[in-house]
């Protein structure tokens, strides 16, 4: 269980960081989302993975409820922030005319020599 959990977290964060370092806003937003999933799972695991329902009297070994509350808060905040960054990315597309994170036109080697934008 622990190993599976750790591997999942690792893959999620690695993919998140990789996408975060891309040059277009869409992969960056996806990367932020993956990273926040990984973080939420990580926070959740801080209450130990072994416990049962976090209700006293229901089980002999209740889980720690605090990380669950923290995760809830983190999920809500993360959701709002993702919504905001999506809107901002769309706004950037409208204002800057392209979806590069630096707002630059394409600088790909294959773009036409006259400076026209690829895509």
């Amino acid at each position: 269980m622990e190993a599976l959990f750790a591997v999942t977290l690792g893959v999620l964060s690695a993919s998140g960081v990789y996408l975060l370092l891309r040059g277009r806003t869409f992969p960056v937003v996806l990367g932020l989302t993956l990273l926040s999933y990984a973080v939420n799972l990580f926070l959740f695991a801080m209450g130990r993975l072994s416990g049962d329902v976090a209700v006293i009297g229901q089980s002999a070994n209740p889980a720690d409820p605090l990380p669950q509350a923290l995760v809830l808060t983190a999920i809500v905040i993360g959701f709002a922030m993702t919504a905001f960054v999506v809107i901002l990315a769309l706004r950037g597309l409208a204002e800057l005319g392209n979806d590069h994170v630096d707002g630059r036109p394409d600088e790909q080697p294959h773009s036409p020599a006259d400076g026209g934008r690829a895509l």
Partner: protein
Amino acid sequence: MSHWPILPILLPLFAGALLLILPSHERLKRGLSLLATLALLPLSLYLLQLADDGQLRVYALGDWQPPFGIVLLLDRLSAWLLLATAVLAVAALLYALRGDDRLGPRFHALFQFQLLGINGAFLTGDLFNLFVFFEILLIASYALLLHGQGAERVRAGLHYVVLNLTGSALFLIALGMVYGASGTLNMADLSARVAQASGDQVPLLAAAGLLLLLVFALKAALLPLYFWLPRAYAAASAPVAALFAIMTKVGIYAILRLATLMFGAGAGELADLTQAWLWPLALATVALGAVGALAARSLQMLLAYLVVVSAGTLLAAVAIGTPQAHAAALYYLLHSTWVVGGLFLLADLIARQRGDKAGALVQGPALENPGLLGGLFFLGAIAVVGLPPLSGFLGKLLLLQALPSPALWGVLLLGGFAVLVALSRAGSTLFWRIGLSSLDSAELDPGRLCACLLLLACALLLVLLAAPLLDYAQAAAAQLHDLPLYRSIIVEAAP
């Protein structure tokens, strides 16, 4: 339990919420926003006086006693920073009321939420709650940064938002590690548990502490993490940029708490965890910030680099770690927040008289009021560089006195010199390399001028009131180093 400590949070919260639901009647909104912001001023003065008896005021939310519930903690340091915020906010709002608030909807509500986040971050005694207040102040700042729109703001805003969201993710990872390794998120409780940490806990807590340092350094604009700042601050509208002068201080405040309360001298095996990193990075920040100031192509960009330089200077003082250095840092913090805020407002006043040249450091039209604006720029520049007789000089002097070895004076003094050169060059370009005629369209707005004067006058006021302020700063720094005092709030609360 007195209810005073929570008022700086509740006041902007309710004002902001009311501003959202009230009908969009401009005078009503402006009045309410101004009233709520002005009320913070006497409130923070009262809290300053309340905290001066040296006791910690613990406000247990929902009456859940620490370490189980979230607490607000009012000590001298918090009260000091609340005052810095309140003065800056009043001036920024007064400036915005002269027309800048019309550039986009909901400016006033966002402004109040921003204050809510800043005040909350200064008052809270719980790490997760600190995260929540950070998010509140950040999301308000995202929207405020974009206030007024324009391509440059969107471009700077995207970097700012993505970087801070990544920072938030790291913050949560650090919090998870702190909780997993120590079982608490209360700062005072954590302080005691870090001191007793042993075995497996030590490396985990060290990693968590350094991650926290990384996150706070991103907010505070420490060396490898400040590249977002100049562009964002230079692109923001003037009142927003002025208010943002306190935002890096939130990061510095958090690092100060980290370096004294949680991983300070009394932290057992993890004592002075952050110091080794802070020292070189802070000095390098000063050096690179000064280079950036020299290379800046617009006045706003130059001022943004001044924010970086002052952040580096303050963090160097935090890294020294003696009460004397911390007292100097607190005095310098007030000075740099207010004066740089005032300079951002002044830069906008100057830019308004230069037509489409705005703040660019190139030859432009003559100014309508060269004497007045030039004089103010001169005063502000003297204060911020640290020449006598204004507050910057006193702040820098105290800092230099607190440095452990005079060999380190070089960085701060050379940095100051570079900033002096940059500001003189900017000033001579703006006021002397000018065309013959001025643009008739630009009138100096008295309301805006007053707001700017209010902040720049603080440079003088800080010198006149230096004795009581320094006494207070020294008491605050001494209190910060009195770890048993902070740890006792947990013991007292236990049944």
